[in-house]
């Protein structure tokens, strides 16, 4: 008999309840139980960052967490970054600066970049590169991603002044 655990947490601002098998990862719960397929499985071993989410504001690989570990926490996925019909500046700048190609890594990159800018509004290029070092992108060579994060930081700082 498989044990299923009742999990209560906040996902993208909404309180949610779901049942999860003991072995189910948070990534699978988000994708299969809650229908949030923005976080991707690129490796399931925490090496590619395509499943990056925020747990109480800190970046985590959803594939490395059990679903039950979400109990009581605030989870943010790429689907929760925009404010209603207003894109987050990172999302808008990624579009304008062509900072994505195939788009499979983009949700995780945006989540990691948001966490960086939330904690460090003026990162250097090196700080951006290290903050995103856990997010593999095979299409872009990272160049346009780094430029886009730099530009989003400028815009966010302008908006907060």
């Amino acid at each position, binding site marked *: 008999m498989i044990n299923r655990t009742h999990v209560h947490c906040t996902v993208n601002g909404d309180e949610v309840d779901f049942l999860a*098998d003991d*072995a189910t990862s948070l990534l699978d719960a988000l*994708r*299969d139980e809650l229908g*949030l*397929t*923005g*976080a*991707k*499985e*690129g*490796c*399931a*071993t925490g*090496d*590619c960052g*395509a499943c990056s989410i925020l747990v109480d504001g800190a970046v985590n690989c959803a594939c490395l967490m059990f679903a039950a570990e979400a109990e009581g926490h605030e989870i943010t*996925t*790429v*689907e929760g*970054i*925009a404010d209603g019909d207003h*894109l987050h500046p990172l*999302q808008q700048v*990624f*579009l*304008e*600066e*062509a900072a*994505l*190609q*195939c*788009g*499979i*890594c*983009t*949700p995780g990159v*945006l989540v990691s970049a948001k966490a960086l800018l939330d904690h460090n509004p003026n990162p250097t*290029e*090196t700080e*951006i*590169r*290290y903050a*995103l*070092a*856990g*997010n*593999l*992108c*095979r*299409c*872009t*060579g*990272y*160049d*346009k*991603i*780094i*430029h886009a994060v730099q530009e989003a930081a400028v815009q966010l700082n302008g908006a907060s002044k």
Partner: protein
Amino acid sequence: MTDTEARPTYKYVGTRPIRHDGLDKVTGKARFAADLNMTGQLRAAITRSPHAHARIVSIDTSAAEAMPGVKAVVTGADFPEIDIADPIHDEAVNNIARDEVLYNGHAVAAVAATTLAQARAAAVAVKVEYEELPAILSIDEAIADGAPLANPTTRTLFTGDTEPSNFASIGQFERGDVEAGFAAADVIVEREFTTVPVHQGYIEPHACVADCGQDGKASIWASSQGHFAVRSKTAAILGWSTDRIKVTPAEIGGGFGGKTTIYLEPIAVRLSQKAGRPVKLAMTREEVLRATGPAPASKISLKIGATNEGELTTLAGTMYYSNGSTKGFSALTGAMSVASYKFPNLELHAIGTVDNTPKSVAYRAPSAPQAAFAVETLVDEIAEQLGMDPIELRLRNAVVEGDPTAMGMPHPKIGFIETLEAIKSSDHYNSPVPEGAGRGFATGFWFNIGEQSSATVNLNEDGTATVITGSPDIGGSRASMALMAAEELGLDVHRITPIVADTESVGFTDITEGSRATFATGMAVVNACRELIEKMRERAAVIRGVDVDQVAWIGGAAVVEGPASEGSEPLTIADITAQAKMTGGPLTATASLNAAGAGPSFAAHLADVLVDEETGQVTILRYTTAQDAGTAIHPAYVEGQMQGGSAQGIGWALNEEYIFNASGEMENASFLDYRMPVASDLPMIETIIVEVPNPSHPYGVRGVGETGIVPPIPTLANAIAAATGVRMTDLPMSPPNVLKKINEK
């Protein structure tokens, strides 16, 4: 920066609009294959070989079938026997083994169950009895005298041989007199180069959903570079007619050549057929690395001769490329890619081998990076020995229109000289080399291809348009299609919706490969738009009551010219579509073609590197790439292709490698141990787009996807040589390998 020769002024082509599919990709809405779920869907898992080479004695699926949740199990016996001469044979066997397993990770059986955990548990419970056979794990083992056969179904291509062999293909190219050429040369350099298998490294693992109905028809949602190829290959492997299968392209999470073949779809269809339910089948990352597409290992012996004046006169050598577990022509492609310098005397032997590693598959300019490693390293050494500037030496020998490739075919109009000049005048090249660093330079070439494409353009009632093609978009091609349609129709690019349609909703289209989508499918879009313009002129003539000859198409509107023009306002597309019902019905046009005149693309790369002589670590301080795009339809995505290709080449050069143990098991089948470049490994990659238009395309497009991966390996090898005096000849140029060479100095 764009280095542009005089060309027509365009309103939309060459601009950088937000891509149409972008919003879904930054909000998480884009649906990749593994994101799809269907009512009643089962999950599937594959049983894979733990041996590099073995005979399958028996397969017992009874225990697996009895496990909880299991709805269907398939093995090779569930698929028709395919003759070894049939072109689909090798892919069929690669999808699921029949008599022998040919590499560690080869699929043997598959299970569909209610949950993924149940499917995985049952896949482990499939009992396979193997009789182990000798495994061939390298080119040297494959070609050794008396070597056992890696794959008994392999026959050597291009030889007519009917006996099994470890030689996948044997070919050669010759011109001039190599012996006399070397005898007359003032400088001769000669080395042997080796490379190991590397993976395309797309972040999205292979995945599909298949739903087979009781009518014997199947729908497949696939992550693929060519959904028409998924249809034809799946049909051939199942022994079905093509009309039984509909393939819908999901968004594709990277391909780079690796998703030009299939691995999962026939298995998912058979499982769905047996279970009577939809089946989702997705690989894990470990499966991707163990069982899908490496670019081949190579071993290349090359010798180049030149005169004191810097004329490259003679090139000779032998190129071995592995094809993995089946036949193929990767060696021939490698030799064909030697096409950048005039070399009056040339002799190249191209020998493909078969071994018990995964079947190799295309990777961005397939086989060219390995060949360029050899050619561009030796050309650099000649420049060094002659005391010549490496760009000057190449300018002196660079091919121009009419010069032969290795195959002997003359080059069409190309922009190699312009590309070399562009990098020569770059800020990077004209800046001093940083203290302690070495600067490396190298070039690359790729043919690009045309092939078959279809497009339909529909004008909507309000004058907006839908552009429908059959080319999966792997790097922004929908935006390119919309830009070319916008230019033709004179319609704002965001009043055009470009989509990629399923196999039943658009005409046949070949795979997105060979940098062909913007070139060939773009031409189909342009042709359809031109037909629509003719139709709109006719409709405008009806509306205005004039002869069609009096209607011109100017700036996105029908304009009556001549005596009847007085008082006649131009008719916009919206004016014409609003009256479509009264003038002959909906406005739509379809075009299809087999595109000729693909334009080769050349690239030149420049890198400054620091080498830590205590650890062997190579740090790239600055990297610049110049590449001939023909015409950059969407320059931001052209730059993206150049930067992405460079980064993949850098990974190939410095870190990436398959590590097999003695029994042929890949020991680094994860993204932790298969080390691709991360953001902190790389500098900004500066781009110079060169535009020497391809005369065979209405906007001059050449295609830009592939060439960028060709120069990085020799660029970095030459930079390491400049920094340390050590010539690297074996990949990867990882810290231990670099350190070893430095210590041998």
